[in-house]
């Protein structure tokens, strides 16, 4: 890469993936439109992850599906609504320069192999397998909580692609480090941690759960210390790059995740209050940080907290 590239000292390597900077768009956030991906790229995002895609289109749950609970935290139960593999491969068909990871969700090996076969000819970085959506039955976390299913699905995806595979883990009812180990042993290259945590909120005036699905996933500020802990524990115990995710809203949060062991960091909910321009602001702030500290490259800090 050109040493004059203004992002040079922010560039990171995650397995075989090279990114101009460590920021990524988290899955499910603005994640269904190539035009939006192009806009985010202009705003300096390092890479984008798509909404989790399933074999068939899914309408998701009725609204309310996304609610702000204050303090920069959110609950969502969108129900993995997505246009399905065929419509979505058309959406991305003209992609050339945007670094895209496709998030996959499904309930059987067959579904995953079908999707990878369709997507693999596109110009994409690789895949993120969503094993951690906490609010859709027979998909996401219900798969992620079953090590045998994880093993089979990751192996299936591995057989169908040479591109890097990340497995997205969450706080479910199996230890996050164990889950990561199963995924890496089955052939995944990267771990993304974490997804939302199962949560709910009840409106006390009407006495009713607010989300139509009643239970959803907690994201945003509230989960940051849990995400940092998971990244720290995974990177301490598993030999694979980790992508951090959960509650990031500033460059300081990115640095904290990287010090805990993340090679790159995804940003989700905070787009709500800040819009796509947050990537531009945060990458500028990161550049300032790296320059002020006199680092050659930001990845010098990856996992540095493990020293202490």
């Amino acid at each position, binding site marked *: 890469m050109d040493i004059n590239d203004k992002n040079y000292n922010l560039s990171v390597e995650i397995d075989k993936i090279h990114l101009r900077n460590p920021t990524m768009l988290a899955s499910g*956030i603005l*994640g*269904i439109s190539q035009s939006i991906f192009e806009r985010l790229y202009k705003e300096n995002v390092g890479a984008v992850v798509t909404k989790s895609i399933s074999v068939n289109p*899914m*309408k998701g749950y009725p*609204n309310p*599906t996304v609610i702000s609970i204050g303090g920069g935290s959110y609950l969502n139960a*969108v129900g993995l*609504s997505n246009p399905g593999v065929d419509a979505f491969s058309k959406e991305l068909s003209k992609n050339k320069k945007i670094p895209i990871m496709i998030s996959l969700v499904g309930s059987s090996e067959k579904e995953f192999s079908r999707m990878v076969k369709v997507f693999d000819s596109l110009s994409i970085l690789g895949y993120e397998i969503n094993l951690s959506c906490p609010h859709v039955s027979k998909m996401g976390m219900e798969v992620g909580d079953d090590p045998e299913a994880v093993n089979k699905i990751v192996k299936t995806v591995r057989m169908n692609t040479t591109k890097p595979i990340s497995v997205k883990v969450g706080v479910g009812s199996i230890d996050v480090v164990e889950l990561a180990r199963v995924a890496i042993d089955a052939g995944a290259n990267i771990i993304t941690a974490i997804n939302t945590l199962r949560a709910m909120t009840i409106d006390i005036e009407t006495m009713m759960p607010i989300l139509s699905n009643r239970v959803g996933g907690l994201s945003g500020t509230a989960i940051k210390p849990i995400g940092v802990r998971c990244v720290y524990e995974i990177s301490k115990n598993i030999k694979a790059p980790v992508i951090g995710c959960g509650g990031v809203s500033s460059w300081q949060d990115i640095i904290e995740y990287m010090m805990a062991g993340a090679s790159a960091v995804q940003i989700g909910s905070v787009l709500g209050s800040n819009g796509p321009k947050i990537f531009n602001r945060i990458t500028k702030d990161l550049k300032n940080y790296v320059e002020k500290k006199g680092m050659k490259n930001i990845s010098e800090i990856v996992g540095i907290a493990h020293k202490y």
Partner: protein
Amino acid sequence: MPTNIDNRRIVRIEQTIVETPTVKTLVFKDSLSHTAKPGQFLMIWIPRIEEIPMSVMINSKDGYAAVTIRKSGVGSTALFERKTGDLVGLRGPYGNSYTLKKSYKKILIAGGGTGLVPLLRLASYAQKLKIQSTVIIGARTKGEVFFENIARKIIQDNDSSLKICTDDGSYGIRGTTVELMSKVLHENTFDCVFTCGPELMMRKVVDLSNENSIPVEASLERYMKCGIGICGSCCLDASLVCQDGTVFSGRQLSKMLDFGNSYRDKDGQRINYS
């Protein structure tokens, strides 16, 4: 009193007004909505049924606001059927708004159906700023014309500036909004055109304004889940209708491939306007 627009307020419906057999206005108390800007919308929660975006209707009573619903699917029908005393939730107002420049002398407002909701709020703002408005209300047929009295009251200073047209000629002038607008443009000059209504109508209003080199702004609708720029379901080319809109300028819209051509369904698939 909540100051954060994201806080969900539970409000009691204080009054219901039947506009047509399928259109109803619900009045409630909410100070944040009362001061919404023209073009902004609320997310209205019909508990355990749906949450849907609704433009904020004007209500002159201090601290009160309203929404005007056209009954269509599950959510809007449930809301339509709420009675005085029922509870609904709301958050917002969200989105940007029409821009009324102080330098404007005369503006054209063209729309129909519930598209009139943000336009009437705009007209009342214009009136306060002493900007003269010509309002075109278009409908398919007489029974679908509503808000005539409200519109008349707002632009009371000049009766001739309210023009109503129906496709079948059963009320007002025969013809479409765009045909009528074309005529009006020949006879008058305007500083800006403002529109809201069916997208294909708005496409034509925008094109016509662009051709006549008149600034134009349109308020768009897309399928919305979050209303706050997170979920992406409301995308319109590279814009988010909830966060970057709902109001876009003719300049912005003329570069958009989706505008007047396609929208996205609940699952995010792109669907072409027939």
